[in-house]
């Protein structure tokens, strides 16, 4: 069990969070994305209040919290998928490798080529398995010829742990696969464009336990090369797969720290109440 030596002030709504008190599990980790003072509004209703968080490189960070707490909203901020939502305003500063991702000169299309997304319900295109995975590289011009494209597709399918099951039926429609396979196909599709960060919005919530376990194993493998941020309703899953966990409640970031510490000895009473099932 980690004995945290850094003392944190008791968090309440009025105390402003101080940067220097932020816990860092070890000094050698590199910060991939940051959020500072992020507020998000849907019309007049505010969904996120002053969120500050650091996403570390090559690690899995989990966002947990009860329904409507803003974790999915925050996830969508990271790759500007809130832009197409009418009436959604994002304030604050979000960076990727230090660059502001809401810079008006930055094309969101390019941003989304570096930050991939996997959704709650598997949503393969109604095209063949090959075309599903090849779509991203095609539109971004990542392959110079058909052979290279084929290589990218096979490599992505293999990384997603799907190649063995589909290698002899790549021309079948993507929708003919089972739920777990479809989700892995979506993951393959996302990693085919070689992103740096992968965002996952409750990727296993519509899958059975075996498919879920496969995806969790995949996350372990992928986290060596990618930064992963996952929103999950299952606390057990967050405890299993992530290195750091952020607990959101009513639009505020209540606690953020190492997963081991959060699940054995959380600092905030609200975190404790949520993860032990005393409210939620």
């Amino acid at each position, binding site marked *: 069990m980690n004995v945290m030596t850094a003392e944190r002030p008791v968090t309440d709504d009025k105390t402003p969070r101080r940067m220097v008190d932020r816990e860092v599990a070890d000094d050698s980790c590199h910060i991939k994305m940051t959020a500072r003072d992020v507020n998000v509004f849907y019309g007049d209703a505010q969904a996120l209040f002053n969120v500050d968080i650091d996403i570390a490189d090559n690690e899995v960070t989990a966002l947990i919290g009860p329904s409507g707490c803003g974790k999915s909203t925050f996830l969508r901020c990271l790759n500007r*998928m809130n832009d197409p939502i*009418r009436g959604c305003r994002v304030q604050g500063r979000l960076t990727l490798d230090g660059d502001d991702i809401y810079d008006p000169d930055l094309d969101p299309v390019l941003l*989304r080529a570096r930050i*991939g997304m996997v959704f709650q319900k598997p949503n393969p295109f109604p095209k063949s398995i090959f075309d599903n995975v090849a779509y*991203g590289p095609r539109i971004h011009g990542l392959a110079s010829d058909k052979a290279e494209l084929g290589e990218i597709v096979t490599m992505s399918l293999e990384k997603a742990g799907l190649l063995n099951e589909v290698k002899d039926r790549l021309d079948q429609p993507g929708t003919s696969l089972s739920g777990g396979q479809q989700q892995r196909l979506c993951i393959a599709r*996302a990693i085919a464009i070689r992103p740096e960060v992968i965002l996952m919005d409750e990727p296993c919530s519509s899958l059975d336990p075996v498919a879920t376990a496969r995806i969790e194993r995949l996350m372990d493998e992928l986290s060596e090369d990618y930064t992963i941020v996952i929103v999950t309703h299952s606390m057990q899953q967050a405890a299993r797969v992530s290195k750091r966990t952020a607990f959101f409640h009513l639009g505020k970031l209540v606690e953020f720290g190492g997963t081991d510490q959060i699940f054995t000895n959380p600092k905030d009473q609200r975190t404790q109440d949520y993860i032990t099932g005393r409210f939620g």
Partner: protein
Amino acid sequence: MSASAHNAGSAASLKRSLASRHARERRFRRLGMLAVISAIVFVAVLFSSILIKGAPAFEQATLSLHVTFDPAVIRIKPRPQRIAGQSPADFARRKRSWQRSLALVDWNRVIETALRKTVGDADISSRDLVRLIASAERFRLRDMVAKDPAIIGATLPVNLLASADVDVWLKGNIDHSLPDNRQQLSVAQRRIVEDLSKRGILHMAFAKALFLNVDSRSSPASAGLAGAFVGSLYMMLVVIALAVPIGVASAVYLEEFAPKNRVTDFVEVNINNLAAVPSIVFGLLGAAVFIGWFHLPLSAPLVGGLILSLMTLPVVIIATRVTLRAIPASIRHAALGLGASPTQMVFHHVLPLAVPGILTATIIGVAQALGETAPLLLIGMNAFVAHIPQTPLEQSTALPVQIFLWQGNENRNFFESRTSAAIIVLIVLMIGLNGLAVFMRQKFERRW
């Protein structure tokens, strides 16, 4: 009350209400059946009345004669050939004079000769005799010779259309017991008609003329729908070429790209209202704008097509928007998440899935436009047009307008059934188009 007693109480009241609920459901189902049956009955009555009236018109009285192309009557020189060293103008002039000589031939003589052969020495004037044949048939003989002058001198079996009066007499569309001064055929004509039909020379044949001939007033038996077909076809082509691209593009823009504000709401309301505007208003608009301002030719299929496009546009836009809305947002999100631009998302993913819906909307819109009559009347298509239009800019008529014109023809006992036959043709076309729409929807439906 204990739990089981409570349950027993509610079970009893459940049973009571169950009976009335079932009764209500039965009543509702019966009402529904009644509605469906009465609708079917009405449609059946309508269709069968049309069918009964129109079916006889698909057969027409025809005479099978042996026609001698007597060179004594057909006194023409051989067809001019192009001579080397001759100018094109000269050759054209010679051809025209040859054609004129062909036109000046007394074809009625040829017909009369052929008829006399069959009726022997019946006491009938030449005029009455020739009147047994539809007057436009002599042009058919002329066209046969023009195509192949070598038949001059030969005797060939030819099927000639009987005149409208003969057809009416044979089909019993005129009361045989009427006095002679109210009959359409003279006594002698009637005698010969009975005689020839007993001998089988005068018989019923399939009415090719209905489909292959243009409209005719001088020779009612020869009146056909060919001109109307082509006119309608040109108009449908114009509608498809205009309404579909503009409609689909507008719908895509409004649904996918346009910001949601008062302006777009206003546009949407207006598009919906356009679909409800009476068609005759579009006719007035077309007459004023296309013919008045742009000076497009009167009663041209182009103008009719333009007007019908305007009418079909709201249908296509609304149907396309509905189709686009039905495509799940998850596919759009997936495409955007991969870094596709909004345009790429629409054209690579959304539109391909919308194709069956758009196709269906187009076909249904075209089928609707096919049956529109009122606006076409206002741009002059109610004129009598007796040729097949070669280009969309020539005068023409359309199928529904042709029906309207025939319905107004004073020769009621002949045109009554012919009009119904034309209606049947129109209905068959529309059912065919709608069937095509259903077929294409089934074929291209993609599961997502």
